[in-house]
């Protein structure tokens, strides 16, 4: 306003006189005058503002409008209707919450930041909050204009954390809670996986990166996957270490059901005080997700958000595979027909084209010149282009979400429709997702509130059979000829040409194997539907006492259909094996159907329900100086899953007919014998139930001292475990001291907030959860033998373990929260100690027990760590803002001891396996003390006593070198956001430090260099070229010699080199996970387009900034333990996205 008056003086020369009080009471406005007379302009400016104007001389005087009589009468009743506007950093804030202090009444701002609040006592206080902004308390008056401090969304100054059971003001929460930056979360369009989007945003939450991190398909085979994650290190060996995911208060088994665009808020619960209320399932921490709900201000918002993400194809140049010339050279050098005479290869082994030439030359069927010419021509072929063109395409994803939200105080809703189309890099794959969600809430009077969240999803995917090919196949083997005709590669079947010809002619079935054609001979199609209903009821019973009920129902039916036609090589070879051909001139008969195909249909369904009833007592004590909150509750849960799989043979897709073939074993077919086991119908049915009771207690004294306590007991329908064994309540206790509020701190004006907190709690896992039992559990087995003799039998699937007990984890957390210099710097430090005793795990048993291993209590695991998170507002000005965030978690875990039997883990398992050894971190990596090559080119080791030897069995456990863990002790993220006017640039860096990995060295130094039957392997890596070839080479190379015979090879130990200390590298790296440039369309443009807000952004991902290895290995895509380099599915992904609100 004052600004406008200044402008008036500038343009007209009239001074404007006003009282600053009056002007401040007036609401902010934006006006646009062009050649308007002053009087008209002032009228326009001051209307609706309780202000009047007059011109005296060349001065304009602005005064408070005299109230009309009616207005004056109304004012006497002190009940006013508040209208106001909320802005943040000068921009109107849509959806800010206005709560009448001490009541349940609340509203939200409209899209232009305005709000109305009826019938408010003038004495009362309104609390105005908006996610990421500082909350303000304002005295109620008719007109309120509030500008929340120019905060940025990166600053997670969210006032409230949610445990899924209750919302706690962050300033009084004793537990260890973290919230990700939701703006970054929202912008990470590269993935629709909610877990993957959290990477680097929460200290202590580690996302297992890369392909290896993907979860396995679940038992019912509905194919849902999301990335593995752990909070504060692995606390268990045997059990799943993923956190528990909770959506709108209900634990969810399948997070994929939810659209990231529908998520409003996420809280990560890390210590016992935060998570113990979730009981036994919370041992790995909890991720609490809140979905969006409607606004209550009477307007309707329609928004669109969408993105297009481009990933391209895998980059095979990243690997170290040999090219054709190198491969042919290596093949020539290693060819040893004396060791491997063609005649000894038998009837089931592959003789690759280059070997056919070499054997031809050796057996003098072709001359040396002819052989060389043929090999040279192979060496000149490179199949990579064909691999790219014929098996891959550019991967991309598009996602569109349209949402509508709106409502009033009585009823509000949020509804969205979402479509995701994933085009993977594999040809002939399709994956589409459709999701609808509808969240509603009803307020019936001031006592009763109901809400109902509904989600409906459908995912449809399909793919064709066929081969998976990478750069480790024979590099000269093309897949189609110059005319584009697919190439037949019968040598890959492993059968000799004579045998194939004989079988084909006698069975009259062609046995040609043409890899490229195989994808035409079948399909697999998956169709999953998800329905999720979450209802809640909140009833105020009596002063401060309320009842809260939450009820969730999830249903997910799905179907998977797999068809393989009789034209496929696989079925043709079955048909041939079933052909009975007494003589070549009689048409053969076939035991296996020769038409149609093999059709497998799996139907699966998941049905889960949860119900929770809570009594909440919440009131102020000691004249509002203290706050008390008490909850008692009960919960019941069931998860039920079924799966039925049917396999039909000779299935005709059009006639829907099939052939019934009983289990058959028949001798005397074309290939010798035919055996067929009827797969029939397979059923899986699982059902689990839980009942739980819990209690929560919170007390805050003088706003300075808080005490939280929780207690919960879970009982479940575990089989083979006594109920009495389940009586293990989990509990926690925590305290917080808000030091800043003490009087002696009042002088420190630069300190906004300082709080100390400490928590302790015990969580646990029942042995049954890991599948261990206190009785022998039997299961009936139908023998899979082709000649079943005695029929079904009973198998002991779990042996009884009389000494089982609970896995229990004690967690202590100490933390500091702080905020300095008017929130320019804020953050927290947490230190935690976690000790897991009676760790459940697969333990090696004394073999005389009859079992090699079983589930039991292994020992004690400790996790210690420290976490720091820091947010800073580095630069704040009208046009330019710069904010940063930094978080880092350090975790050290150690298997303290084994209380189980001494498993005497063999040396080779220590070297190759990711085993758990007492005294070491989980995922320990050991290496051999490599000591160069000996004069025969064999790797040597230096033993602890100084001896250098190449003897395979010479080394013992004491000689091994402990290199560190494959799990990173340090991980975290750094984010920076720059905002210039309407542009913003955000870069997020993630890092994993301090762990180790093996380099991907060649490990083939013996045998024939060829491929395997119908396998697409066979290539070597280029370090093979640096191998030892002649005495003296050991001075220059560490790469062992090639020897052709296995006997020679078993006299040496190649693993001294491949698993030697020279091939262990640091796996530390830092990557810019994403860079995003966003642009908000200016208001003028928006008004012309008749839309409320619009932003566009572009994002690029995955830029390696630093890695601590010189071999160009991306640790994200390396088998850390074994040193296998995976080819990343893409190098960088690029995304364009748009967000529009109408």
């Amino acid at each position, binding site marked *: 306003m004052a600004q406008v008056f200044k402008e008036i003086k500038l343009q007209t020369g009239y001074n404007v006189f006003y009282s600053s009080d009056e002007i401040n009471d007036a609401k902010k406005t934006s006006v646009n005058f062009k050649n308007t007379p002053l009087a008209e302009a002032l009228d326009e400016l001051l209307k609706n503002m309780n202000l009047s104007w007059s011109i005296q001389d060349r001065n304009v005087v602005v005064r408070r409008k005299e109230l009309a009589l009616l207005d004056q009468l109304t004012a006497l009743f002190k009940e006013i209707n508040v209208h106001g506007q909320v802005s943040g950093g000068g921009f109107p804030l849509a959806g800010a919450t206005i709560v009448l202090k001490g009541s349940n009444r609340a509203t939200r701002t409209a899209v232009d930041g305005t709000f109305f609040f009826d019938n408010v006592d003038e004495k009362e206080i309104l609390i105005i909050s908006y996610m990421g902004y500082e909350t303000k308390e304002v005295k109620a008056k008719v007109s309120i204009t509030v500008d929340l401090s120019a905060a940025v969304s990166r600053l997670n100054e969210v006032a409230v954390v949610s445990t899924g059971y209750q919302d706690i003001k962050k300033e009084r929460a004793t537990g260890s809670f973290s919230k990700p930056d939701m703006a970054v979360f929202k912008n990470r369009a590269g993935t629709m996986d909610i877990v993957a989007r959290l990477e680097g945003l929460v200290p202590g939450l580690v996302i297992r990166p890369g392909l290896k991190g993907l979860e396995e398909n679940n038992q019912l085979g509905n194919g849902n996957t999301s990335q593995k994650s752990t909070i504060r290190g692995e606390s268990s060996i045997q059990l799943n270490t993923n956190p528990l995911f909770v959506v709108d208060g209900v634990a969810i088994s399948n997070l994929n059901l939810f659209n990231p665009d529908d998520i409003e808020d996420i809280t990560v619960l890390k210590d016992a005080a935060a998570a113990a209320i979730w009981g036994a399932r919370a041992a790995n921490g909890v991720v609490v997700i809140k979905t969006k709900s409607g606004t209550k201000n009477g307007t309707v918002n329609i928004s669109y958000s969408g993105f297009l993400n481009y990933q391209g194809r895998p980059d095979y140049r990243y690997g170290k595979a040999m090219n054709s010339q190198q491969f042919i050279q290596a093949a020539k050098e290693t060819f040893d027909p004396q060791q491997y005479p063609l005649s000894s290869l038998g009837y089931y082994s592959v003789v690759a084209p280059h070997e056919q030439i070499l054997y031809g030359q050796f057996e003098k069927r072709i001359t040396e010149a002819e052989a060389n010419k043929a090999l040279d021509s192979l060496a000149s072929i490179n199949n990579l282009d064909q691999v790219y063109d014929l098996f891959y395409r550019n991967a991309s994803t598009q996602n569109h979400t349209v949402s509508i939200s709106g409502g009033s105080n009585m009823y509000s809703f949020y509804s969205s429709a979402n479509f995701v189309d994933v085009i993977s890099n594999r040809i002939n794959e399709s994956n589409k997702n459709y999701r609808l969600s509808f969240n509603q809430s009803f307020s019936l009077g001031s006592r009763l509130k109901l809400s109902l969240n509904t989600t409906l999803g459908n995912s449809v995917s399909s793919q064709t059979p066929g081969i998976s090919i990478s750069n480790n196949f024979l590099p000269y083997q093309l897949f189609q000829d110059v005319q584009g005709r697919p190439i037949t590669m019968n040598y890959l079947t492993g059968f000799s040409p004579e045998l194939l010809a004989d079988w084909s002619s006698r069975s009259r079935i062609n046995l040609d194997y043409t890899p490229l054609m195989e994808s035409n001979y079948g399909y697999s199609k998956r169709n999953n539907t998800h329905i999720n209903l979450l209802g809640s009821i909140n009833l105020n019973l009596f002063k401060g006492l309320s009842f809260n009920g939450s009820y969730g129902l999830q249903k997910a039916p799905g179907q998977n259909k797999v068809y393989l036609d009789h034209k496929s090589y696989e079925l043709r070879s079955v048909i041939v094996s079933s052909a009975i051909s007494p003589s070549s001139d009689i048409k053969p008969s076939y035991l296996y159907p020769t038409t149609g195909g093999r059709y497998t249909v799996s139907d699966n369904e998941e049905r889960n329900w949860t119900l929770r009833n809570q009594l909440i007592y919440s009131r102020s004590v000691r004249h509002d100086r203290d706050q008390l909150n008490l909850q008692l509750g009960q919960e019941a849960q069931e998860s039920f899953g079924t799966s039925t799989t049917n396999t039909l043979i000779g299935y005709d897709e059009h006639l829907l007919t099939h052939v019934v073939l009983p289990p058959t074993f028949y001798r005397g077919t074309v290939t010798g014998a035919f055996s067929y086991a009827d797969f029939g119908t397979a059923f899986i049915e699982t059902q689990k139930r839980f009942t739980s009771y819990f209690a929560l207690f919170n007390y805050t004294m003088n706003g300075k001292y808080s005490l939280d306590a929780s207690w919960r007991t879970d009982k479940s329908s575990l089989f083979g475990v006594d109920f009495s064994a389940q009586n293990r309540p989990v509990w926690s206790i925590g305290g917080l001291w808000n030091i800043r509020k003490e009087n002696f701190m009042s002088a420190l004006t630069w300190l906004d907030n300082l709080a100390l907190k400490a928590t302790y709690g015990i969580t646990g896992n029942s042995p049954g959860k890991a599948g261990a039992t206190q009785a022998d559990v039997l299961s009936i087995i139908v023998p899979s*033998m082709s000649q079943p003799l*005695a029929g079904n*039998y009973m198998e002991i699937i779990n042996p009884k373990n009389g000494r089982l007990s609970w896995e229990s984890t004690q967690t202590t957390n100490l933390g500091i929260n702080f905020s300095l210099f008017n929130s320019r710097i804020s953050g927290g430090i947490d230190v935690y100690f976690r000790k897991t005793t009676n760790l459940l795990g697969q333990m090696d048993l004394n073999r005389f027990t009859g079992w090699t291993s079983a589930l039991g209590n292994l020992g004690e695991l400790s996790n210690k760590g420290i976490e720091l998170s820091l947010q800073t507002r580095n630069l704040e000005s009208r046009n330019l803002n710069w904010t940063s965030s930094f978080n880092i978690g350090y975790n050290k875990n150690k298997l303290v001891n084994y209380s189980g039997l001494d498993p005497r883990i063999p040396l080779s398992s220590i070297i190759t396996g990711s085993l758990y050894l007492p005294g070491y971190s989980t995922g320990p990596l050991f290496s051999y003390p490599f000591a160069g090559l000996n004069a025969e080119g064999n790797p040597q080791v230096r033993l602890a006593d100084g001896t250098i030897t190449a003897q395979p069995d010479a080394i013992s456990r004491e000689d091994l070198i402990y290199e560190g863990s494959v799990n990173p002790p340090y991980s975290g993220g750094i984010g920076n956001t720059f905002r210039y006017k309407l542009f913003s640039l955000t870069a997020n860096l993630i890092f994993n430090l301090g762990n180790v990995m093996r380099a991907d060295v060649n490990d083939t130094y013996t045998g024939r260099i060829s491929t395997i039957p119908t396998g697409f392997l066979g290539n070597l890596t280029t370090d093979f070229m640096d191998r030892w070839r002649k005495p003296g080479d050991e001075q220059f190379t560490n790469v062992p010699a090639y020897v052709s015979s296995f006997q020679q090879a078993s006299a040496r130990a190649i693993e001294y080199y491949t698993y030697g200390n020279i091939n262990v590298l640091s796996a530390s790296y830092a990557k810019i996970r994403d860079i995003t440039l966003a642009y908000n369309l200016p208001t003028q443009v928006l008004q012309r387009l008749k839309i409320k807000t619009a932003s566009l952004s572009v994002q690029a991902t995955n830029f390696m900034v630093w890695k601590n290895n010189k071999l160009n290995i991306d640790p994200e895509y390396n088998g850390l333990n074994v040193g296998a380099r995976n080819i990343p599915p893409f190098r960088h992904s690029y995304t364009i996205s748009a967000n529009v609100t109408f």
Partner: protein
Amino acid sequence: MLMLLLSMSCKKSFLEIVPKGQVLASTVKDYDGLMNHTSFYANYYGLPGLVMGDELAAEAVQFPSAPLLTQRGFAWMDQLYDATVSSAQLDVELKNIYICNKVINEVLHIADGTEAQRKNIRAEALANRAWSYFGLITCYGKPYLASSAATDPGLPIILTAEISNTGFKRNSVSEVYQQILSDLKVAIPDLSTQVEVKTRVSRQAAMGMLGKVYLFMGQYEEAKIQFDAAFADLATTSSTTSLYDYNEAFLPTGVFQPFGRFGPNNPGNNTQLLNEAILHKTAILSGDFSNTGLVMTKETMDLYKPSDLRLNFYSNMRSNFTPLPPGLYGKYALTYAHTGLELADMILMRAEVRARTGNTAGAVQDLEWLRKNRMPSADASVPSTVTADPLKLLNFILEERIREFAGEGYRWPDMRRLSVDPLFSSKTYRHLVFGEDGTSIKNTYTLKPERFTLRLPQLILAGNPDMINNP
């Protein structure tokens, strides 16, 4: 509705769900199902004795590509198993002992079924436990010699099913044999002569097993009593157990037709042909100890008369269908070795104890019973030069065992017991590897006396560091 849900969730029965497909053993049917386990009868993959008999030789082309355990076993090496490699035989038999112990200790206490049913199942478990121990002690304990058995280290006797057991100690060979005898003796009265399928233990089977154990202990009189009793029982069930007459079986319409790629359709490669089984158990010949690269010695082939129809099981092809050097033969029609109790075995064992106890006529009668079914009857009779000399007769019976069971792992236990038999203990054994021409000798391995007893695998010792291994 809320109250309904509340009350439902509070009931204890809400949690009592028996998962589909799982059960805690409580009925006769459950325990019967345990004894019906395939691990008691079907093809396990690592019986060391399969490659150790002296009826075998190796050939240089394929032998190097045989499994490492085959190569080491054939060479009678000290250390068969690498530190990390477990023995399939031990794994299977110890697991079987676990199942048997569970059944033995529990089944009499269940409420279900009749007492006879419960006792029958327990007896079956006892007999199987005995057989598992007999298989193991004939690998890891010294051959039974009454004078030293009480001090020779054997194997731990495990009588409870409990995975947390530790502190295992090696009982003496004598104690193990006493346990085997006692288990079989307790079992026999509770067993029936009729079984549903011959993978299950009948009374005649248990008595035959007991006879075999006595034979291996050198107690021939005791053995004879058991064999006679078993044959008496068999006579009542002769319709289900009899010898195939090869003179008929090999006819174009016979049961051994058709000849496939793996030879005639016979009990050696078709487990449905159960006529000759008293107790059917098999071990597969393509596992850890496979017959890859193994052939018969020339002496073995010379044991057969040209008219012996058992020659049909031999071929001069390798398992990968490349031809063997001239003069070498492999038993290609053999996929499974029979490790239970075969009628032919019991006939020959009774012939042996009869011969050893002076009943020459009985021995010859048994021998000819078998031989008549294996060759034209004109050639079946035992030569009079043999019948005249008890030692020659004994040798003839032992050779007949080779003719009948070559390549099936029967010879190795026989070699073991003969090593402590004063009549044969001076014999030395060697294994030859033939060169590519089929006549030159590429390698010779000689059996050291201490290698009649295998060393315990290192993996077993690693978990039991106080246990002393065999020399």
